[in-house]
């Protein structure tokens, strides 16, 4: 396997030549916020729009998850333009996310909390209007609870259920603001053919999909580092 060397935030890193900038950074301890990326998903969704970085010679910030590494590339994850885009994107997500961390099973391991700290943005940012969807919570499954209101539509669960596990219970429905992760015909999870394996909950960056045995004030039991 051939490798290339590049500089990220002044740090010289050597990675596989077919890596993307996002993974080159994450593997070397440099954090870039991201919700939709999965290591084994070779065609990135590029839908969360948080992993913006600046690269020398480029006129505008690009998403790190889609950018292939190149020899001698100089990446800056903390450029003003990149952070501005990431902050706006994140604030938009938070404006449509019910912030109730104290009663959320993901409290403490929630990716949104990590990103807020990294970007120095308040979870309850005031810039945008709060636009919630108020969808019913689905607790029909024996193993899982699905709260679509907390979902950031990163699509990790959908991809894992369909592509990695070949089950395909979860999918996207509707368009625009009404886009939602759901099952075929909107069937409750408990009647959808869901095997209850919990891989989706493990990959979910927020508290949208959680395991039932972790609901009672316990944190979501996930190995965060291994999750993506």
């Amino acid at each position, binding site marked *: 396997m051939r490798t290339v060397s590049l500089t990220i935030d002044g740090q010289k890193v050597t990675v596989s030549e077919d890596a993307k900038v996002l993974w080159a950074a994450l593997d070397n301890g440099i954090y870039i916020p991201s919700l939709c990326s999965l290591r084994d998903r070779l065609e990135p969704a590029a839908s969360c729009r948080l992993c913006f970085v600046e690269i020398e010679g480029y006129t505008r910030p690009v998403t790190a998850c889609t950018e292939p590494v190149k020899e001698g590339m100089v990446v800056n994850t903390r450029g003003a333009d990149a952070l501005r*885009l990431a902050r706006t994107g994140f604030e938009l997500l938070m404006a449509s996310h019910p912030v109730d961390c104290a009663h959320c099973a993901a409290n403490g391991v929630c990716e949104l909390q990590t990103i807020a700290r990294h970007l120095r943005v308040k979870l309850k940012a005031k810039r945008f209007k709060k636009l919630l969807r108020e969808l019913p919570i689905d607790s029909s499954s024996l193993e899982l609870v699905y709260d679509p209101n907390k979902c950031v539509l990163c699509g990790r669960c959908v991809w894992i259920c369909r592509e990695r596990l070949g089950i395909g219970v979860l999918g996207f429905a509707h368009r*625009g603001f009404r886009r939602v992760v759901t099952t075929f015909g909107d069937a409750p999870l408990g009647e959808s053919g869901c095997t209850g394996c919990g891989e989706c909950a493990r990959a979910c960056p927020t508290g949208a999909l959680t395991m039932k045995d972790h609901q009672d004030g316990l944190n979501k039991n996930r190995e965060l580092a291994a999750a993506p």
Partner: protein
Amino acid sequence: MTAAQRQTVASAFEQLKNHASSEWKGLWESGRPVITVGAATCGRAAGALEVLQAFRDEVKRQNVDCPVIEVGCMGHCYSEPDVTIFKPGYPPICYGNANPVIAERLVKEFVLGDDPCLEFVLAATEPNDLVPSFADFPRSQYEKKIVLKNCGQIDPEQIEHYIANGGYAALAKALQTRPEGIVDELKRSGLRGRGGAGFPTGQKWEICRNAKGRPKHVICNADEGDPGAFMDRAILESDPHSVLEGMIIAAYAVGARHGHIYVRAEYPLAVERARTAIRQAQKLNLLGKNILGSDFSFDVRIFQGSGAFVCGEETALIESLEGKAGLPYHRPPFPATHGLNGKPTVIDNVKTLASVRHIIENGAEWFASIGTAGSKGTAVFALAGKVVNTGLAEVPMGTTLRQVIFDVGSGIPNGKRFKAVQIGGPSGGCLPESALDLPIDFDSLTEAGAMMGSGGMIVLDEDDCMVEIARYFLEFTQRESCGKCTFCRLGTRQMLEVLGGFTRGEGSIEDLDMLMELARDIKGGSLCALGRTAPNPVLTTLRHFRDEYEAHILEGRCPALMCTELITFYILPDKCERSCDACVGTCTVEAISPNKKRIKVIDQDKCVKCGTCLVACPPQYNAVIKVSPPSEVPTAEKQAVER
């Protein structure tokens, strides 16, 4: 290709051409009159099919030898249904706003008799001494029909008509040259994609030609979705073979095996005409295996899209063609290298493909001589909105907006004042009067904050509120957003919330800054072109019409009197006629009643602002007016109602 093969192609085409020419001549040179009825969707909506039937019935009843044929759109949509009568001894005369009664009279008095019924004439299609012709219209000075050449002139369901008018000659010529030569010709012509972005077509073809992977595909993007745009539909309905020929030439140039026309299912006539065209071309071996005896094979199928605006974006279109949900994906890789099923794919707009045959036939130099330095050829516009001559217009690139709107379109109806022109649909922007002398091309429009887009041009007058227009277009993109990426799904929604507030007089001046910032980030952060261009209508109106935004926010006033929340209907007491009750009877909610002097007064608490009273009030009184802000209405009148 060997000389023998070239000979085969040439003679195969010669045969087709001779047959088509003799059919075409048989139609015209028999000394009998011919009637053509423009029956594309625009004509049909105005009743062209009834007119067509009326002509056929009357011709049969009178027992005259006079073929009545259906043609496509002539571009004069303001006067549909359009009928042209070709009678020997007379110039071809076009009649506008025809109806079955006029049709009967025309057959009796003009086809049978000698009275050309001048009262119904729109214009003659050729200069003559009898009636004014289109050449006498100011628009003829600016129009240059290349892509629209055949539209309204031939029967789109007769391949012979197309071939007799020079059709498929470019294909025969192309098949006798090397594919590299075609790509080179396209590159030298300077043709840029007419779908909106303006990417050089020749370059796209070259990338696809050099890309590895088989089989390659050619896709015709006919997923026209901009509100107020109808160019692609009109071309597919009026001259489908020109698009098909462009596709075949493209396929030959890049080495593609399969072709797809992605057309919206809302265009049933376009679908039907394209389908007929494909069947006819297959029958004459212009499609299928070994086209015209060459070793090149290519076939085309039609895919009907379900009408999602985002599917006009090429990556979403490919997903949709593959049977998945039409969501865009990240580029690169571009479709030219990794397109349909991961194979190299050329995606071109209808107008781009329809231009190809003319370039091959007349040469790259001819095409490059038309237009401006950076944008060659002509631009096809669909003129809509507050303009006298709505319809299709084709002008050379570099024509100014003023010439298109005021000369080709004959200006604003009802003596109103021009306010702005919206170009490029939801991705484009609104340009004010100061931009009217801007020469239209890809780069000048982008510089001005608008976009060529696919060619929709909506003219707005003083009665149009720019805040409401911006809100309308944003609502459209918001509704059509696929919802995949954060900025487009949530960002445009936030913008819409703020704009909706403005039209109700809510919000603050600081919101304008927030709107600008958010718009800039949506442009920079969205995944596909839909999101990247969605803020354009807002940004351009903010740039050119900031005073209107400020009036809404600071004064609660809508200067154009359009935003219902900010206006009140009011009856001027000194204009109201005591003996007239027109408004009282029409008011849907019984909000109008006469006072003691029998002057009518609107109860503002009951009024739902439907505007019926404004229409009902007889023009000699014109007593009903709109007032903004509502507080302007004299309070004394409100008290009168209470008493």
